[in-house]
């Protein structure tokens, strides 16, 4: 399998605070990679470096190389806007656009891409909502406001919004931390479906979740990548003592 995302020597800073210290990792195509670690270990910063969202924070800097399909997304001629269109993101709290309807929320990214024909939009909106397992619940109220849905539905709406622009990679930043167990179950179910077509990186606080949904797991601590391996191996025979301490609940 070919490495889809190759990160080498990545350092990220907020002002003078160093959030990531020399990360080297190769993330494979069409698998789910979980990123775990205690709060403040840099796991969110790490995935925000992959879609160039880290740099929109004032005072944030970074150095190193992130290759997506062999091309450095931080090279001088790389356009962050085009890169973000290839890499979807789902955030910690559901954040649909409150002024837009369910339909328009899903279509928002398409309209940015210049897709305006009603027929095209209708097809993609329906397909995206079906992929995010929300279609059945909202097909009769596509014109209702996006924020009229429940939290779990809103999060699936955000997933549909990310899917609509046909990204290659989808980043999930603790997507279930604001959701109840039933909604969490639905999102996890969805991840299984999505990994057939997309490369998925999910940051999670919840180790059971990482064990359930991911194929590979990366363990971050204090801005460093401590261990990265098959999920099974990380949870059954970790090589590093710190990983073992963390997954057995001795700290974090």
């Amino acid at each position, binding site marked *: 399998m070919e490495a889809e995302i190759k990160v080498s020597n990545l350092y990220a800073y907020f002002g003078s605070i160093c959030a990531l210290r020399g990360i080297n990792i190769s993330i494979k195509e069409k698998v789910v990679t979980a990123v775990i670690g205690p709060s403040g270990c840099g796991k969110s910063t790490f995935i925000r470096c992959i*879609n160039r*969202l880290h740099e*929109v924070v*004032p005072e944030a800097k970074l150095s190193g190389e992130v290759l997506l399909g062999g091309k450095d997304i931080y090279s001088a001629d790389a356009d962050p*806007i*085009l890169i*973000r*269109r290839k*890499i*979807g*993101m789902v*955030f*910690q*709290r559901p*954040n*649909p*656009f*409150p*002024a*837009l309807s369910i339909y328009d929320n899903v279509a*928002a*990214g398409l309209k*940015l*891409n210049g897709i305006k024909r009603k027929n095209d939009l209708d097809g993609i909106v329906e397909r995206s909502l079906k992929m995010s397992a929300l279609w059945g619940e909202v097909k009769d*109220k596509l014109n*209702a*406001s996006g*924020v*009229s849905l429940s939290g779990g539905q809103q999060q699936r709406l*955000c997933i549909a*919004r*990310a899917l609509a*622009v046909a990204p290659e990679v989808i980043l999930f930043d603790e997507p279930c931390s604001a959701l109840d167990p039933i909604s969490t179950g639905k999102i996890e179910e969805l991840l299984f479906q999505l990994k057939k077509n997309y490369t998925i990186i999910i940051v999670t606080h919840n180790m059971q979740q990482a064990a359930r949904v991911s194929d590979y797991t990366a363990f971050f601590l204090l801005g460093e990548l401590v261990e990265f391996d098959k999920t099974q191996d990380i949870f059954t025979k970790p090589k590093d003592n710190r990983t073992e301490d963390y997954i057995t609940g001795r700290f974090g």
Partner: protein
Amino acid sequence: MKIKSADLWFKKAAAILALSAAALVILLVCSMAYYALPAIRKFGLHFLHTSTWDPVKEIFGALPFIYGTVISSALALLMALPVSLGIAVYLAELAPCCLREPLSFLIELLAAIPSVVYGLWGIFFLAPFLRETVQPFLFRYFGFLPLFQGEFYGVGMLSAAIILSIMIIPTISSISREVFLTVPSAQREAALALGATRWETIRLAVLGYARSGVLGAVILGLGRALGETMAVTMVIGNRPEISGSLFAPAYTMASVIANEFSEATTDLYLSALIEIGFILFFVTLIINIAARALIWRVSAKIKAK
């Protein structure tokens, strides 16, 4: 027991104070209605739709003043809104950090200038400038429109609307800026992560999220424009006529009250002026209610459906 009774007294006192504000409004309406009664009796509804204002023959009609107030405020809003939104977006989203505070301060300073100073500036700078430069230009290129025809006086509807728009820009822009600052960064990041450009992010995440707040800002600005007296009186030309041209002098409700109150010698004249005040009160009330309803509809749409 002592504590309990103190609590009770506090509750009563607070209730009385709160109710007294409402009572004051009712008192205001009643006393104005009482003093306006002679004019209301004499002219009835004609007062609202006749244009004659003749203190000598004692024939009074308020239409030119209602027209002047509504049109000058509406024009002011039309000019101020795009400028204010531009200022607010720049200050909240685009300006470099070192510029944000000083610029916001300067713009808020515009709101602190007394309106009589605006009026003076209008008379000595704006009106001559309009008369000599802007109005001839508009007439030459857009003179086919009735809006830009007639004599170039300088003072008139156009200068009043411009002065008013300058006066409401700080209100609308500073409130809109505050509203933009409350937009969660998750909204902006949602747009950015979809591959939105800076402008698209502002349009999709910031303006969409903030629109009911911006509407509130617009209403406060409109309220200020409707009631503004001094600056408008100094530049609008004070002629009770309805003209299709923006160059023509006009008159507002607030201006006529301010100008003629001291010379209103007869009871009927005085009563007519008070009735104009009464109408002004109702016009602002209606606009505020309409705006409240609009905000309510927008935010209700956002909250639940």
